[in-house]
C-alpha cells in the first residue's frame, strides 16, 4: 500500500513561501484617516496585503469576496456595528476560525467583554501603538482553531465581574 508522498520541488516551495508571506488583512472602519493609519502600520512589515471597507455591511461583503486571513474591525460604524460583524463571521462554520481583532475607541471593561463574548480574538483600544497592533496581529494569526475553541469554552463557563451592573443614571425614556 503505497501512500502518496507530496513532492515538493524548489518552485512549489517558493510559491508556498510567497503565499505564506503575503497574507491578506481586511480593515473595516468608518474613518478613512484611521483606515490609512492602520494600513500603513499593517503594510510596514511587508507581510500583509490590505483590503478595506468603510462600514459593517460593506465589510461583510468584502469579507466574503476577498476571504482575508485576518480582519481588523472598528465597533461604532454605520449600518452594522463591529460586534455584529464579528458574530456574523463566527456564526458561519465556513468562516468561524478567521483571526479577528477589534480596534475601537470604546475602552471600558464592558466593551472589551462584549467584544470577547461576541467571539473576537483580541480587543485593542484606540489610540493604539503601531508596535502593539503588529504584535496583536502576529498573535492572532498564530491562534489555532483548537485554541480558539478552548478560549470560547472558557469564556462561556468562567465567572466574571459583570454579574450585576447597577447604573444609577436615570433611564432615558
Amino acid at each position, binding site marked *: 500500500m503505497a501512500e502518496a508522498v507530496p513532492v515538493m520541488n524548489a518552485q512549489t516551495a517558493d510559491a508556498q513561501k510567497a503565499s505564506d508571506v503575503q497574507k491578506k488583512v481586511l480593515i473595516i472602519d468608518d474613518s478613512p484617516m484611521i483606515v490609512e493609519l492602520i494600513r500603513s502600520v499593517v503594510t510596514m512589515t511587508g507581510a500583509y496585503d490590505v483590503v478595506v471597507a468603510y462600514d459593517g*455591511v460593506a465589510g*461583510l*461583503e468584502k469579507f*466574503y469576496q476577498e476571504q482575508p486571513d485576518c480582519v481588523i474591525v472598528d465597533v461604532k460604524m454605520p*449600518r*452594522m456595528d463591529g460586534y*455584529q460583524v464579528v*458574530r*456574523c463571521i*463566527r*456564526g*458561519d*462554520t*465556513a468562516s*468561524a476560525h478567521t483571526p479577528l481583532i477589534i480596534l475601537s475607541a470604546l475602552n471600558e471593561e*464592558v466593551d472589551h*467583554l*462584549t467584544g470577547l*463574548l*461576541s*467571539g473576537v480574538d483580541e480587543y485593542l483600544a484606540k489610540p493604539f501603538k503601531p508596535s502593539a497592533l503588529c504584535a496583536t496581529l502576529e498573535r492572532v494569526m498564530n491562534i489555532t482553531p483548537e485554541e480558539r*475553541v478552548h478560549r*470560547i*469554552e472558557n*469564556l*462561556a*463557563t468562567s465567572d466574571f465581574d*459583570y*454579574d*450585576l*451592573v*447597577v*447604573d*444609577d*443614571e*436615570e*433611564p*432615558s*425614556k
Partner: protein
Amino acid sequence: MYRSFPFYISGWWDADALHSVWGWNVVARPTPECSMSVLVVDADTIQRDSLRAILGEQYRLTFVAGLSEALRMVREHRPDLLVSEVDLSDGTGLELCARIRELPGGRRLPIMLVTHRSSTADKVAGFQAGADDYVVKPVDTRLFSVRLRLLFRLKGIERPRDLQAPR
C-alpha cells in the same frame, strides 16, 4: 452609590420590573444554564431532533413551528433564550424578531437566528430585524451550546441605553 447592591435577578423580564420600581438600569445576571429555558422555532423535525441532541441535556427546550405560536409562547412563558429558523410556516424569523422587540421588555430577550440562508444580505437583514446572533446551518455541534451561553451573557451585560436606542 449602591454599585454593588447584592441583587440576584434571574431573567430579562425581572430586570425590566426592577427597572420601573427602582428607577435604575439593572442588567440581568446569567442564570445557571441547566435551568435556562430555550424556545426553538423550527418546523423541520430533523432540525428539531438535531437541536435536541445538541442542547437537550443543558437547557429546557420547547419547540414550536410557527411565528404566531412563538409569539404566544414568548408572551406567556417568557423563555430565557429564543432560537429561530428564518423560514417559518406562517411568516419569517425576521418578522418574529421585529414583533418580539416591540413587546414590553422584548428587547432583552436574546434571539439567535439559525438558518440555511448564508448570504451576506440575509445576515444583515437578520441583525437589522433585531436578532442578536446569526448562525448558519449546519451548526458546529461542539460550539453551538457554548455560543448560546455566550449570547446569554452578552445580553446580560448589554447596556440598557443600547437596548432603548432605536435600531
